[in-house]
């Protein structure tokens, strides 16, 4: 095998993915380190795919294309497999999100206790539809299935915080906590 051929075949897939500034996408030292650490929890590197996506998302809020390819290389699986996982799970974001992500329970417990009114109030207060981000990049609004607090609904989460008994009347107090 010629040198030219072998160098061509070893070009990592990740290097072929375009980025905004033209430079190849790289994972930070800490992202790489955390992913390598996560692999050790399982029998097989593939099992760390969800953890790896969550690690990248923790640092960047979302998972850009370049990260998919680099995670695939770290786990020795195909980028298509990583993309398949990334797009299956609703808490992995493949599009940019705002500084704070609001997930609102739209399941039956909250539906019975005022979800419709809360969801409408959220959309009018933020001026966005579900799936959108406010122009100032402050909030992204998403629906989510039952958050496991049906005795205290309506329920929503902002980032890692769960808020119970949220209604149009106390919504602003909740939102004000997130700048």
């Amino acid at each position, binding site marked *: 095998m010629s040198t030219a051929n072998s160098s061509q075949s070893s070009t990592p897939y990740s290097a072929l993915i375009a980025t905004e500034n033209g430079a190849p996408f790289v994972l930070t030292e800490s992202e790489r380190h955390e992913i390598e650490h996560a692999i050790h929890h399982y029998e097989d590197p593939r099992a760390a795919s969800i953890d790896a996506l969550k690690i990248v998302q923790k640092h960047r809020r979302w998972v850009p294309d370049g990260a998919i390819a680099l995670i695939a290389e770290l786990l020795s699986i195909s980028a298509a497999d990583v993309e398949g996982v990334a797009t299956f*799970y609703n808490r992995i974001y493949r599009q940019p999100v705002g500084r704070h992500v609001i997930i609102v329970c739209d399941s039956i417990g909250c539906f019975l206790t005022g979800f419709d009114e809360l969801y409408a109030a959220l959309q009018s207060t933020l001026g966005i539809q579900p799936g959108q981000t406010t122009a100032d990049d402050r909030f992204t609004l998403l629906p989510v299935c*039952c958050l496991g607090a049906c*005795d205290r609904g309506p329920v929503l989460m902002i980032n890692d915080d769960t808020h119970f008994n949220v209604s149009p009347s106390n919504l602003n107090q909740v939102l004000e906590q997130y700048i």
Partner: protein
Amino acid sequence: MSSNVNVGLTNVGPETHPLTWRYTRAGKAVLDIQEYEALEGYSALKKALAMAQTDVQAEVKASNLRGRGGAGFPTGVKWSLIPMGPDVGQKYLVCNADEMEPGTFKDRMLMEELPHQLVEAMALAAYAIGASKGFIFLRGEYILAAERLNAAIDQAKAAGYLGENIQGSGFNFELFVHTGAGRYICGEETALINSLEGRRANPRTKPPFPQLAGAWGKPTIVNNVETLMNIPPILLRGAEWFKGLSQGKSPDAGTKMYGISGRAKITGLWELPIGTSCRELLYTHGGGMADGLELACWLPGGASTDFLMPEHLDLPMDYDTIMKAGSRMGTALIMVVDNKQNIVSVVRNLEQFFARESCGWCTPCRDGLPWTVKILQAIEKGEGEPDDIDTLQQLTRFLGPGKTFCAHAPGAMEPLQSALKYFPDAFKQGIRAEA
């Protein structure tokens, strides 16, 4: 962020409520290992480690403990299907803590308030089945539970209840909290295993059952949080004691975390003898419906159970009785629907949930659920076509048991078929008059 637990706060006598007894004794969450040990914590594990593995299994089987995740399969029978013996090799114990069934919030409370009881239960169960590695598959949104479980695991390791040569027994067990990234389908046993392996959470073909070929192809037991947390008390006080806890209210054994959501006066959780009636739960403990509202119907245990009516209130809430009444006990956290709700809208909300959460693996589920939602939306707006109700009836059969890869779509059809049965007029009202 502590849960709305109404469970027997006066219950400080002998242990009659194995799931919340330690919590009520302490009067708060039991997070510190020494505090848990002072409440006889980890005594069951020590006792079990001195017994033969098969004897531990036999005690659980004799207790008649049935799976608290919703299906009610006898735990001891599930365990007895796992291969034992020195040649079997690696086995896994997985705790299903992916609580996402709409209307269900019991495992959150148990893990947040009593993390050590789950850690002890897992070490004990792992010993019984010979698993050297365990995973708690926790939904990603349970941030506080993850924090408290990880802290409990660290304490348990330091105290020699996890890790190598536990309490000098020669038994090794490593426990790890795996947090998910969403999707209801992860609660399906085999989909959960796929997710744990870092794959899309599509269910797997059964057989082989996980007991023979589960995580990474190795024998695996998957048990629910509440199921597991019953096990240390069973080992400590015996199968006969556990059977007596239902106080003759049911042939089933033990207590159950019951709960109320919807517009009742008091919502929350209660640990009560299994077989307690819904009337007692709703009216004695929950104070009845909120002011000005009447009970129209109720879901006995989550979104995927058939509606029951006020006439069913006196039935003991146990697996077989609720099954005979045409529903399933499911998770036993009831959801009350009041008379001000439009039942078609309620069912539409339920089916939207199932349609969105379908994994898309098999056609009846992937295509049938959005179709169901479209019809319900039309009926809700008074724009239903004359044959829409027949189509919905047909869908309940085409998406029913045996037609799909897993229980997701059949579960989705349960509230629909029962709403059609009990509230035919509400659906008929949404049908457009023929021109």
